[in-house]
Structure formats: structure tokens, C-alpha cells
């Protein structure tokens, strides 16, 4: 994303925010077909249905982190390699708050507030100075942040496993012979509600409008009185909140809290974001869900692909998308001026 490209996109291109409205027919058909396939499979096999629900719940976590990456990328043109580690760190904050006597949901919302502030501070202190320098400089700063966050967490809390109370209990629902853990439904619900709230904020509030303007055309936005700096910082703050949601929902699915909690999830989130087109918020969420379900099903039904190959599989998806359809499912192909 060069400054030139940002200030003068080719005329006639639709608004970038309206990702869902621009789905080209083949992608829509593909998604409907996939959903139909999952439904048919679920009706025929209880195991398939259980794996699908679990995959959707995990996929929602990937999608949430992927959405955080996309928000940051759209706002500042930076891929935040530390996004997963920040999510992990905020999950430790929630753990600490619970240790201090807060209930799970009190800690949950307090953590989201803390994450928001953290994201804003990081943008202002670390990212702003390197944002316009080069891709490599920005990547390395976030890589440094990755190592730093990891270090701070292990320094404060140590590397041993921590256990948090389960937010949704251990109840299991039986729907027509299919056992569905309340945990997965809860994860799915929390993530989707968070994502919808963020979407509504962007779409229906003046703040959201300002943030979209600041990300899309910073110079023009500043001219009409948008505080671009603040908007970008708030964008980072919101991304950190979504990351915190991802971390808090990933923890119960792993059953333990450890410093490496989010590292594989970051790779899945990268793959999901790229699958969705890297610039498309809706694409990130759909990409996350698709990846979560397909990883879960493939490990079960393709004997060669064991759980060790999940990460390489995500890598293969990422590479295949970049090579075959770099714009992803929902992205627009980049028009570059020379």
C-alpha cells in the first residue's frame, strides 16, 4: 500500500467498506455450496456435525484474530506480527483479574478495556514512527513487540500452565443425537457478537465513518477535520480488543493458558485473513470460519493429514491463495500505478 495508491485509487471502484455487497457470483456460489455440503454432512453423520460445530467455534476465534489483523492493516498498512502475542498477554490479564477475585465476565470486560488502551498506546508509541518508513521496518518493530510481549508475560507469570474457570461450564446439549458442547456455542456467540459490534461501530457511527475515512484517504480526511492520528490509534485499540476476545475464547478451547497459546492461532489467522483478501473484514471472518471447519474435518477424514500437519496445511492454504487468487475471496485485485 503506497501513499500514491491510497490517495488516488482508480475511479469507479466501489467503496472498500462494502465488502459483502461486492461478492462476485462464483464466490457466493462457492460459499453457499460449502454451507450446503456441511449441512448435508451434518444431517448424515453425528460425528461430522460435532466436528463442524467445533470447527466453526475454533474458526470464529481465528476469524476474530484475522479481523484484528485486517483492521490494523487497513488503518496503518502494517501487518502486526505481535497481534497474537498481545491477545495472549491480555488473556493473562484476565487470568490475573480472576485471581484477584473478579468473576469471569467482570474480568472479561475489564480486559477488553485494558486491551483497547494497550492497542492505542502501542500504535502511538511504536508504530507511528516507522509506519511510513518501509514494510521491513514496520514488520521488524512488530516482531520486536512479539518477542517483548512474550518476554514480559513469561517474566511476570512464568511459563507454567495456568488454569482459568470455564466461562460456559461443561454442559453438553443433545440435538437429534448430536452432542454439542455449550462451550463451542458460547465461543461462537461471543466472537460473532463482538465482530458484529465492531462492524456496527464502523458502519453506523460518526467515529466509524471517521476511521474509515482516515484509513482510506488520510490526507482528505484530515482536510475535512478528521483527527487521523487518533482514528488510527483507535483502530489499533479496536484490533487489540478483537484480539483479546480471540485470546479469551481460545483459552477454554485449549483448556490451559500458556505463553504459546496464540502462536499457532496467529498462523491460522494469517491464512484466514489472506483467504478473505487481507483488506476485507467480512472476508477475514468467513476465511476464519472456513479454515476452522476444514482443518477440523480434514484431520478427521483424511488419514494422511494428522494433527501435526495442521500448520503446514494452513501454510499451503495461504500459499495457494496468494499464488492462485491473490485478492482472496472478498478482496479487490490491486491496481498499481507506475
Amino acid at each position, binding site marked *: 500500500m503506497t501513499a500514491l495508491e491510497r490517495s488516488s485509487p482508480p475511479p469507479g471502484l466501489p467503496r472498500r467498506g462494502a465488502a459483502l455487497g461486492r461478492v462476485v457470483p462464483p464466490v457466493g456460489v462457492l460459499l453457499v455450496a460449502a454451507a450446503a455440503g456441511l449441512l448435508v454432512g451434518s444431517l448424515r453423520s453425528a460425528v461430522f456435525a460435532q466436528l463442524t460445530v467445533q470447527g466453526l467455534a475454533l474458526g470464529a476465534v481465528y476469524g476474530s484474530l484475522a479481523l484484528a489483523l485486517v483492521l490494523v492493516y487497513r488503518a496503518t498498512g502494517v501487518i502486526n506480527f505481535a497481534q497474537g502475542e498481545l491477545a495472549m498477554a491480555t488473556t493473562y490479564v484476565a487470568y490475573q483479574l480472576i485471581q484477584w477475585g473478579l468473576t469471569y465476565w467482570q474480568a472479561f470486560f475489564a480486559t477488553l478495556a485494558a486491551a483497547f488502551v494497550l492497542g492505542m498506546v502501542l500504535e502511538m508509541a*511504536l508504530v507511528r514512527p516507522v509506519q511510513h518508513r518501509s*514494510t*521491513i*521496518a514496520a*514488520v521488524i518493530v512488530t516482531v520486536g*513487540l512479539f*518477542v*517483548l510481549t512474550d518476554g514480559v508475560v513469561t517474566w511476570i507469570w512464568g511459563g507454567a500452565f495456568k488454569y482459568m474457570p470455564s466461562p460456559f461450564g461443561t454442559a453438553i446439549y443433545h440435538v437429534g443425537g448430536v452432542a454439542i458442547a455449550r462451550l463451542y456455542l458460547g465461543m461462537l456467540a461471543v466472537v460473532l457478537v463482538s465482530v458484529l459490534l465492531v462492524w456496527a461501530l464502523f458502519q453506523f457511527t460518526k467515529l466509524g465513518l471517521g476511521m474509515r475515512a482516515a484509513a482510506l484517504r488520510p490526507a482528505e480526511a484530515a482536510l475535512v477535520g478528521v483527527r487521523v492520528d487518533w482514528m488510527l490509534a483507535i483502530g489499533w485499540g479496536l484490533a487489540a480488543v478483537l484480539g483479546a476476545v480471540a485470546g479469551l475464547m481460545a483459552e477454554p478451547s485449549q483448556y490451559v493458558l500458556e505463553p504459546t497459546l496464540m502462536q499457532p492461532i496467529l498462523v491460522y489467522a494469517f491464512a484466514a485473513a489472506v483467504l478473505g483478501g487481507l483488506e476485507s473484514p467480512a472476508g477475514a471472518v468467513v476465511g476464519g470460519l472456513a479454515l476452522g471447519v476444514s482443518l477440523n474435518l480434514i484431520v478427521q477424514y483424511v488419514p494422511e493429514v494428522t494433527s501435526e500437519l495442521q500448520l503446514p496445511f494452513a*501454510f499451503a492454504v495461504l500459499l495457494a491463495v*496468494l499464488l492462485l487468487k491473490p485478492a482472496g475471496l472478498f478482496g479487490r485485485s490491486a491496481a498499481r500505478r507506475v
Partner: protein
Amino acid sequence: MRERVVTLGSLLAVGAALAALPFALSDYNLGLAAQVGIFFVAVLGLNILTGYTGQISIGHGAFMAIGGYTTAILSRDHHTNLLLTMVAAFALCFLLGLLVGLPALRLSGVYLALATFAFAVSVPQLPLKWSRFLGGRDGVQTSQTVSHPWLYGVAWTASALLFLLAWLVLRGRVGRAFRAVRDSEIAAVASGIELPVYKTLAFGISAAYAGVAGSLFVLATNGYAQPSEFGVALSLQLLVGAAVAGLGSLWGTLAGAAFVGLLPNVSSSVPVIGSEHGQDVVFGAAVVLVMLLLPDGVAGALARLRRLA
């Protein structure tokens, strides 16, 4: 002319200092110095790709893993001479680097960063899957282990040879093509540079360097090649090393290698946070500070100092 004398002088100074070190250092510190030599090789290679050709890679830890496993497996199964295994690692990683360079042709900027990052995360999973040949979580051990002086000597000899090779490659036509690709791909193509050839070549060379570094890295850990040693942290360290080094300076590359090779060890003695866990805090903070304060790395800072003088 004066510049050439300075360059030659600094080369001789570094060489003399390196030759004298074994007599001055304890065995433990000699091991650390060897560690710096290993990172010197890897950072030098990554610099050819990232610094000269402008292609970012967060995946070079994976090539180190491949090089390291090459050494460990050849030594385990065939008792091959360790030096020969390094040559094998160089050749194998060169070929694999060319292969990885092919898809990388279509990627640039953040996309390349993402793809190479995923590559770095994926490769250490493979030994867990094919555990009979690649040893699983416990890894593969070489049939013989080496002493610190041996490692020091070999690491820095390899560094010197590969430094010479890099200089030969970069000073002429190929080096000019690399820099042209970095500065503007379109201008480079317009000047008749075959983009695919030079981009994959840069990938191959830098991967080969990482392979040799990986061989040495395995020998430095008592001959054990383990997946956990080649985690994504290693790839991140290499990129940090290349960034700290900056572009095209022997001193810069030495500084970058020392930064990633020594800082984690030195920082464990820092007060308050100086512990096993605290070293990442110091390292991460140092990385962020260096990037904010020295945008062109040590090499850039040196060049600016020289202009001032």
C-alpha cells in the same frame, strides 16, 4: 584509494582479532564467540536477500532447520565427515531456496512476509509427522560431537569463506542486478534484468548460507537437531540480526550477529528482570529501540558517522 585501504585494514583487523580470540577467551566464552560466527553466516545470507534484493523473509530459520537436519542425519546414518555435511547442507538448501524462491516471485512486501512466516512455522512440524526418519520431538543426534575450539574455528572459517563468496557475487553484475531489483522492479526489468532469475538466485544463495549456519547450530547444541530449537523465534532472530546489521557493511553484519548471538546471554545478568525469563524482555525492547533509533541499522549509522567526520 583511501577507502580501499580502510576496507582492507578493517578486514585485517577483524581477522587478526578473530585469530587471537581463542587464546584470550575461556572455553565457555569461546562457545559464545562461535555462536556469533554461526549467526554471522546466517545474517550475511539473509542480508543478501533482504538488504540487497529487497525481499523480506521471516522463514530463514526453516532453512537453518533443513541444514541442521542434513548434518544430523548424514552423520547419524552414514557417519559422514561433519565438514562434508556442511557442504551438503549448503547445496541442498541452495536448491530448496531456489524452489521456495519460485512462488516468492509472485509475492512482495507484507505478502512475502506472511508466506515466509507460515513457512517458518510449518517446517518444524514435519519432524513430528515423519518421526521415524526425522526423529520426532526428540530430534536426531549426530554420531560425533565437537569441542568449542573446533566449532569456533570452523564457524569463523566458514564465515570468512562465505563472506568472500558474498563479496565476489555482490561486487559485479549479479550484485548490481540485485540492487536494481530492490530499488525498482519495473526499472530493473526495463533495463533487461531477468527478474525471476535474480530473485530466485538471491533466495537460493541466502538459503544456502542459512543451511550452513543450521549445520553449525546443530553442532553447537551437542549435535542434536530438534524441532523446538528451530522454532519461529529463530527466524525472527535472523531477521532482527539482518535489520540491526543494515546494509553492506562488515562491521554492521558483525554487530547484527553479535546482537542476536550474545544479547540473550548477556541480558540474563541484567538486574531486576535479568533471569531466564527476562532475557526476552531485554531482547525485544532492544529490537524495538534499535529500529526506532537506527533506521538503517548499524551500517547506516556508521555511514552517517563517516559523513560527519
